[in-house]
């Protein structure tokens, strides 16, 4: 049987409050009080039960391992709204069986707009993981697994030993997704590709009564995994909120996960791994010998086309992002102009934080006007009645911030 790599993504954005043109310039609150309510709801349904289950698996089985990515904005909200979640995460990391991945602190699209800003946000995320978990990740996952060749170079230059992304047929060109690849170019950054079918069987189809495989049992799923050769690597990447939030507890998702892992652990031929367990042993020659995954245009793990049109397609998304990143130069050089000593002022810290929280990719996802197969998924996640309202509301906050920065 192949190696199996679990990776779960934990993220909650700071959603915007309803903005008002008539409050412009009055230092009004950008972010919604609903964020606390939503967070606590997901804590009950998903974070607490699933983290508890992971901890039990870790304690009962030294062979159980998995990888997590925790966005900075998720961790901020956990600290503020549900410290018990943070405690569980610290206990999990302390077992040594859970690998944390690096990413942009604010879950942004900076990799597509500004290398400098991207580097800063990755650095901030590293600092936060060090501070909360005394942990230094070695493997990187970009927002929504967005990847293209240039991002491979950027991530390699930051010293990471590998990166997680999506296996997209148009670039994989018929090759297996269950083996390691590397980025183009001299850096030869190893890439782990998501096994979309098996991942989505759990993340999206598990509770779908129209699905031919419904109801899915751990035994059946194990048989599917067993079809793969020993030298293959099955990357099961998904939102952490799959467990309990996208798939509610009454679908049996928790017991499915528990049984599946117990069966995997009992099966001597199976092995659970984390990204760094796979990548750390590689020699430079082995890395260079990996087949190349050449991705000239950005891909992601979202929507049917696995591209970036969920965030950047229509003019509203494009211009909102363009205008937001247009503030970079002025906002990042503020201290020198506003403070003679060159120290970072409190006001500057606040403006940078607002700017970066506005960069969170979810704001642009809400503006998506694709309404085919993906529309339902977008509507599920959006707090707005429609994408136009998401744009209208965002622009007011953007203008307010812009005026404050240029004051």
């Amino acid at each position, binding site marked *: 049987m192949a190696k199996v790599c679990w990776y779960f993504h934990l993220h909650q954005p700071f959603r915007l409050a309803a903005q008002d043109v*008539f409050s*412009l*310039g009055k230092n009004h609150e950008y972010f919604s009080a609903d964020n606390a309510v939503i967070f606590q709801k997901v804590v009950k349904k998903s974070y607490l039960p699933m983290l508890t289950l992971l901890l039990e698996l870790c304690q009962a089985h030294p062979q159980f391992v998995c990888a997590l990515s925790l966005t900075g904005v998720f961790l901020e909200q956990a600290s503020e709204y549900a410290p018990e979640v943070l405690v569980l995460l610290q206990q999990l990391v302390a077992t040594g069986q859970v690998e944390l991945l690096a990413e942009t602190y604010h879950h942004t699209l900076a990799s597509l707009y500004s290398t400098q800003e991207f580097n800063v946000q990755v650095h901030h995320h590293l600092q936060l993981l060090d501070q909360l978990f005394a942990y230094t990740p070695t493997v990187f996952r970009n927002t929504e697994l967005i990847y293209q060749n240039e991002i491979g170079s950027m991530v390699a230059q930051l010293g990471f030993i590998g990166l997680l992304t999506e296996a997209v047929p148009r670039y994989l060109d018929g090759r297996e997704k269950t083996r390691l690849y590397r980025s183009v170019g001299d850096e030869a950054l190893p890439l782990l590709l998501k096994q979309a079918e098996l991942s989505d069987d759990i993340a999206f189809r598990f509770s779908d009564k129209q699905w031919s495989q419904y109801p899915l049992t751990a035994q059946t799923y194990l048989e599917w995994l067993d079809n793969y050769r020993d030298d293959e690597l099955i990357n099961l990447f998904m939102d952490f909120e799959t467990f309990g939030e996208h798939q509610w507890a009454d679908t049996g998702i928790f017991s499915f996960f528990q049984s599946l892992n117990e069966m995997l652990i009992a099966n001597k031929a199976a092995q659970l791994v984390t990204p760094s367990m796979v990548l750390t042993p590689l020699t430079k020659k082995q890395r260079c010998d990996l087949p190349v995954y050449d991705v000239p245009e950005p891909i992601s793990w979202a929507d049917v086309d696995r591209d970036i049109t969920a965030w950047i397609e229509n*003019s509203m998304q494009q211009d909102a992002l*363009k205008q937001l990143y247009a503030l970079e130069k002025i906002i990042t050089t503020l201290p020198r102009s506003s403070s003679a000593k060159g120290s970072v002022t409190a006001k500057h810290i606040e403006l940078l934080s607002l700017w970066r929280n506005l960069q969170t990719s979810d704001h642009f996802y809400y503006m998506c006007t694709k309404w085919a197969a993906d529309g339902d998924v977008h509507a599920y996640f959006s707090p707005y009645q429609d994408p136009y309202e998401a*744009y*209208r509301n965002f622009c007011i906050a953007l203008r307010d911030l812009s*005026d404050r920065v240029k004051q």
Partner: protein
Amino acid sequence: MPQQPSVFMIGWEYPPHNSGGLGVACQGMTEALASAGHHINFTLPYQFAGSVGHMSVHASPDPTVRKSQAQSPPWNAYSASSSIQQVSLRAAFVSGVDTLPQADLEHHVESYAQRVQKIAHSQSFDVIHAHDWLSFPAAMAVHADTGKPLVTHIHSTEYDRIPGGNGSSYIMQAEQRGMQAATHVIAVSEYTRQILIKQYGINPTKISVVHNGIAPHSTQVAQAQFAGRKPMVAFMGRITGQKGVHQFLEVAKRVTTILPEALFVIAGNGDLYHNVLLHNAAAGLSAHVLFAGFVRDRQKQQLLSRADVFIMPSLSEPFGLVALEAAQHNTPVIISKNSGVAEVLPSATQLDYWDTDKMSEAVLSLLKDREAAQLQIASQQRDLSHVTWQNSIEKLGSVYKRALLGTHG
């Protein structure tokens, strides 16, 4: 005071359930008429929740319509907020007869006509006064029953609402029949009078112009302070082709290229709303043009008073009350030459709606040259001193007299 003619007035909307100019005009007009000694019976096609002391309101909801819907006009002819009923009228005005639920439209108008006929039976009056096409079938029925003179009042035509003459032929026919049947026709402006002559073939001698007045606004409105001291340019109106909102975006693009801190605000809603948002983004204006949604009351006043320039770039505007309101709030106004309000606000900057070059220059010079802006504001205030409902109903009184003489031969 000599006995003034008693008026049987057929309305369609009235504050607080009004969506725009027609309701406001009916309020100003009837209040002034009542002060001048006219007795007024006023009909409405829905359950009226307001309280009115100056006239007898005959609220007559459609018995076949659910109660919740009967609380407001069956369609808000002049608005585009989001209720279902309004969508149907918007569809009517935009798509014409091909796609509109025309049976619905005809049903509402005809059913109202029958109800109004019954009300008229129990009232005595000298003259019938009907506002816009939705009330014309009712007015014609009462006119036929009673033989009393009929005055039809045109506040807006299908030709204005759907630029290019592609409006609903059903509505245009209803407008034309109402005017033909009328003893006398009132146009809300000379601009509209010319449309009635040229597009509807109405006899020029039968049409009088009575401009709307405007109620003096209370000086109590708190000076709105928002968006710091950024130069602000405002648009307020339905977001439709008629109102020239794309021209407003073009002006925003030109002005912010030269004056990047300028903020443009669009207040209103309408069938082009989504289109305009996409266009705004495609023009790179996401941080320059903001959308306030549909504003009323305090926010409306705040925006009109905070704006440094107000633009009404309509392709065709029978009157344009909002331009007067902006002038009342001491905001320099730029208006389309294709507007009735230009006739009573000569001090406003008047330009062709399509000439966005000149419009941008005008905005820039008003923003930069505060002295010139102050001069325009003062002249606008002098214009406003003549635009009273008192003056309007003097003309209206002559129309009534003429109509009464006309029927008596």
